[in-house]
């Protein structure tokens, strides 16, 4: 975590120029004023001092000031994060459950017709960039068929709708972004679960379970239990990609979450917000891989011993 934030700091300083030079570039401000602002923000101090101050701020949760939103970055994030978490959480749960189910089903009948159909379908899905899938869904269901509301999280009149309608409104806005993220996610996990299940299915202990008189359901459970650990490891590693996918999907569906805000912040050169977003996503990634590690140890006693 600490190391990741250091990396972000280094990346920041690597870039040509500095935030202040860029922000005021082209503005009719006297050079001395810019220099004064630079000094005020401490950008003249030696690198280690800057670094220590920067790190100190982050540790205290001082993420800076968002020029774009004219609010502290912390408050902006507090507003945006739950929305992204909702979308990503739903997508992750769907991808994992559906992908693992499909992959496990395929793994027990590798090479069959059904497996080949599923393998081809997941390969195609896997090759669809999320943003294009999102565009396609948008064009089809919103612009052409007009079945679903265009973008955002709720419609303009959301507040005045009765409760039942409000729920419906939310769901209608959620379904396309969720679908765009999940479809690709399902293919990722299905592909991986298929190969790990296929390997497990060939292991002699599957035959042992049958020889014990265990029903096919139970036999599949035996194999699935051993095929689980690698998939969980992958789930941990997939988080960065999911974060990336969420950025595109939020952008296209104008979902008012972190990903969308990050792209806006990049375009508006809102450095503190971009930095915070990068830090936050790194934190999620690190947390995700730690969690995956933990779960992996729980389901497979061989890991780490």
């Amino acid at each position, binding site marked *: 975590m600490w190391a990741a934030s250091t990396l972000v700091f280094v990346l920041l300083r690597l870039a040509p120029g500095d935030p202040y030079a860029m922000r005021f570039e082209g503005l009719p401000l006297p050079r001395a004023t810019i220099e004064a602002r630079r000094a005020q923000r401490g950008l003249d101090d030696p690198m280690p001092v800057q670094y220590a101050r920067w790190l100190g701020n982050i540790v205290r949760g001082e993420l800076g000031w968002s020029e774009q939103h004219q609010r502290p970055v912390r408050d902006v994030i507090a507003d945006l994060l739950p929305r992204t978490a909702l979308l990503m959480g739903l997508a992750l749960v769907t991808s994992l459950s559906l992908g693992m189910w499909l992959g496990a089903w395929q793994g027990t009948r590798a090479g069959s017709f059904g497996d080949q159909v599923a393998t081809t379908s997941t390969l195609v899905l896997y090759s669809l960039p999320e943003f294009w899938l999102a565009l396609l869904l948008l064009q089809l269901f919103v612009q052409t068929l007009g079945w679903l509301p265009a973008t955002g999280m709720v419609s303009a009149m959301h507040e005045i709708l009765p409760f039942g309608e409000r729920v419906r409104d939310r769901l209608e806005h959620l379904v396309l972004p969720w679908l765009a993220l999940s479809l690709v996610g399902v293919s990722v996990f299905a592909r991986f679960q298929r190969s790990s299940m296929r390997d497990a299915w060939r*292991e*002699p*202990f599957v*035959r*042992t*379970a*049958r*020889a*014990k*008189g*265990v*029903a096919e359901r*139970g036999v599949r459970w*035996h194999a699935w*239990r*051993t095929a*689980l*650990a690698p998939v969980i490891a992958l789930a941990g590693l997939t988080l960065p990609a999911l974060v990336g996918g969420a950025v595109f999907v939020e952008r296209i569906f104008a979902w008012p979450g972190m990903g969308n805000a990050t792209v806006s912040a990049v375009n508006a050169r809102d450095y503190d917000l971009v930095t915070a977003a990068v830090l936050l996503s790194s934190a999620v990634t690190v947390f995700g891989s730690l969690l995956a590690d933990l779960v992996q140890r729980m*389901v*497979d*006693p*061989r890991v780490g*011993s």
Partner: protein
Amino acid sequence: MTSPLLSVHDLRVSFFTEAGPARAVDGVSFTVHAGETVALVGESGCGKTLTALSLLRLMPTGARLAPTSRVEFDGADILTMPERALRSLRGDRIAMIFQEPMTALNPVLTVGDQVAEVVRVHTALSGRDAWTRAVDMLALVGIPDAAARAQQYPHELSGGMRQRVMIAMALILEPALVIADEPTTALDVTIQAQILELLRAMRERSGMALLLITHDLGVVAEMASRVLVMYAGEVVEESPVELLFSAPGHPYTEGLLAAVPTLDTSRERLRTIPGTVPPPTDWPAGCRFRERCAHAWDRCASDAPPLVQLGPAHRVRCHLVQEPERRRT
């Protein structure tokens, strides 16, 4: 004579491979009586493991059984019975011990759980009672501190301990027939003796019949009362164990015996059978052993020898039985 516990009739298992159909098991018939220990002997690749698996319909995918094959256990045909009936037989009346306890046990479940699973599947016992029985059984097969060991995973146990777990798993419901496929092959020599001793003790205790698949004639001599020698998918000799060692009828059996190190042959060089078992896609016409046989003559290439009755329990598949003068010394 009472009717046999297990009666295998004309068992034929084949595969379709790129090199053509492979008749891996090709017309095997034998019986096992209650409480009897029968050994199935042969080199690797001769079809003995596949025979054993077929008895519980556990063949790998792609294996085809001939419609004329029958495996009768207690009067019911295992090869045609419905899946449900078969499942209730497996693990309860007929159990199996596999060669490689490391891979034959599920690596992510505790050994106690895996032994208890047999009980849970076949009886109405609760999870806790099944566990208690599993721990008792683990103690019975000689696992020290069984209650603690039951909580461990296969990779935390030694090879010998793992095989004891396998045995506990197979014997916990006191099956009438146990099929043991090379139960000692993967183990150190000293451990092998212990495991055989354990199997013998368990046999005494429960009166089970044992079908022992092995390539080790030392194991056969110690354990079995009757022996089936398999070569290239066929039974080439069936014999009571004493007779097999004193008067083997088939050149292949002789070859196997000559390859066993014994005290009185220790000074001469150990003899081996030249060549290897041909692939199952390519059994030779006539006698399948003729290419490796020192006595083979032209009849062996043209006629496939039948299994000829020599004595009350002694059958041999060799033309030498009818033309003993062809034997070369």
